[in-house]
């Protein structure tokens, strides 16, 4: 099963490689990993999407907690949460398809952020499923390049990590 794990850790050199190293060392799988500073500049927040059985997930959480620089670990999947991912996609477009593309942009509620050499750069954000659906709607040969951030997530309401 897919899990979204939020990790608060000290914003120190090497902390990221400790987490990444842990996943390879123990054979845990990573679908995506995002990391950036939080509103407290001494802390980073990392969101890891992983999959595995309940026992594997239990080990992932415990092993992450064991890292000295990790302050807190939560499996967001088990609680009420919001998740988003952002993608920048470069789509080439002939004039006819250009019409389709504008329609698609409207349907998916995304934005055209740039155009150059008849190539549109489109910003899509939402759940992973939505981004995948957008990509499915485009003729594959027209997809020039994509860059996705991976999932980030946060719990709803008063509950903190």
């Amino acid at each position, binding site marked *: 099963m897919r899990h979204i794990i939020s990790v608060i*850790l*000290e914003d120190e*050199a*090497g902390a990221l*490689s*400790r987490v990444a*190293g842990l996943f390879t*060392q123990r054979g845990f799988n990573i679908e995506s990993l995002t990391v950036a500073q939080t509103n407290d500049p001494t802390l980073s927040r990392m969101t890891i999407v992983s999959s595995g059985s309940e*026992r594997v997930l*239990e*080990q992932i959480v*415990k*092993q992450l*907690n*064991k890292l*000295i*620089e*990790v*302050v807190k670990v939560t499996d967001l999947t088990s609680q009420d949460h919001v998740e988003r991912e952002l993608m920048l996609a470069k789509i080439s477009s002939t004039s006819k398809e250009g019409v389709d593309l504008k329609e698609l942009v409207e349907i998916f509620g995304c934005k055209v952020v740039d155009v150059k050499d008849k190539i549109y750069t489109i910003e899509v954000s939402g759940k992973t499923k939505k981004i995948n659906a957008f990509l499915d709607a485009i003729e594959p040969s027209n997809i020039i390049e994509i860059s996705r951030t991976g999932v980030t997530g946060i719990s709803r309401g008063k509950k903190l990590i």
Partner: protein
Amino acid sequence: MELNGAEILIDCLQKEGVEHVFGYPGGAVLHIYDAIEAQDKITHVLVRHEQGAAHGADGYARTNGKPGVVLVTSGPGITNAVTGIATAHMDSIPMVIISGQVPSPLIGMDAFQEVDATGITRSCVKHNFLVRDISEIATTVKKAFHIATTGRPGPVVIDIPKDITIAKMEQEEYPESIEIRSYKPTTKPSNRQIRKAAELITKSKKPILYAGGGCVIGNASEELREFTRMLGFPITQTLMGLGAYPMTDKQSLGMLGMHGTYEANMAMHGSDCVVAIGARFDDRITGNLEKFCPTAKFIHIDIDPSQISKNVVADIPIVGQTKQVLQALTDELKDKQLDDISKWWSQIEDWRKVDSLAYAKSPGVIKPQSVIEALYEVTKGKAIVTSDVGQHQMWAAQYYPFDEPRQWINSGGLGTMGFGLPAAMGAKLAMPEKDVACVTGEGSIQMMLQELSTMLQYATPVKIVNLNNGYLGMVRQWQEFFYEKRYAMSYMDALPDFVKLAESYGHIGIKVEKEEDLKPALIEAFNQKDRTVFLDIITDPSENVFPMIPAGGAHCDMLLAGRDEMVSKDETDFNAV
């Protein structure tokens, strides 16, 4: 007063109460060595190879419980130490390793003797630091010792670039304690879990205590003894736990696992309640997980939550220090009525009668088991015994019943050949008044021979008991059993004359080839109080370690000495109780 980084570092080590540092100098640590030379509180032990430094500090830490300290230079200095660091990591040994690094501006430039020390050691340390400024030295050292010695102990590396040891600053007060917001190990168990565990224990009809290295490292031996005696339960100990409970006591079933006793493994297999205390259900203990303890409920006590339900799902997990948990359980169970387990004991006594450690003597050859028995007799069971890795390690564990914790020093988790000799040196430095024996084989000893030189320089007299069978015995045993006797690379040809070798290092060498010379040689060796004696004992090359659970087997499927058939118990035997 203004001090340079090296002086601050040494001052910090002194304030941590460090008495011995095991190390080897080199370019990146010359300032640190300069600072060591200028003081006399810390004795530096100059090893002959950095792996020896790590094992020496490790043996020291295992013997007296204080953190072992290592000092090595950058590049090959730290890479040579990695095997020793990984060894300590697997067995949860508190150590602080200080490695020099190339000057900060050269980091990443492929400078002479540069390696990414924190990168290389990341997966085999509890934590590591790269010091970036002279002002960080004191807090980093404080953090390193705190992390190394608390919670589940382990090695911590501090990598210090050379320029930081040269820089100067006004000396600041060394912190007395330190708070790390992201590191707060649980020590006290939850009352609720204690009550649940106590309830299960009172109801169990076929209980067994399974004690591991956490009882030794956690200094919980006293509590374990009180708890075990109060309950009257059988107890088995892992390779790492030997001595936590006296093995000569009648409640002790000896070691369990791949080369454990018949009674210990059968009792595990038949048990309805396994209380794991500071043990981690290693594959050498459990064998085939699917067939492991089929009827048991598990209470699992460990300081490290990640060990719980890793290999075996715990019914009642208890996170906490073994010492505190055992105290709490003892208090909880003090006035409780236990189930009658006399039938269980009589079943165990029947298993004990199988006498699974019996071995056949044959005239004209020295049996390795008899060497360990003689060692036990000559040292009256009181010596600190270190070992290397292989058959001799198993025989030492089986035939030298340890009665005290920290008496048995071996590389259990990583299984590092070469560990025994430098560890013996460290043990002797930690406990100079004790007899120290290093049980080894002609394969293992050759991996760290150079430390014989260090042992002369620092006058650490130990007795080396070399079980010389001309083979990498454990490899040969597996090849005999599982590779149709194709003995690929397990024969040790062109061995040195160990007697002359020992003598050339300034020690005493004695070769023993006859059974009748064995005891007199051991007595002679231990009478040489201030000399290291190398006993090269020629043993039976065909001897195998029994009992044995073949890889993938269950605890009830054991190979016993002198029997062609595997002794396998069907379910009815266990249901009889």
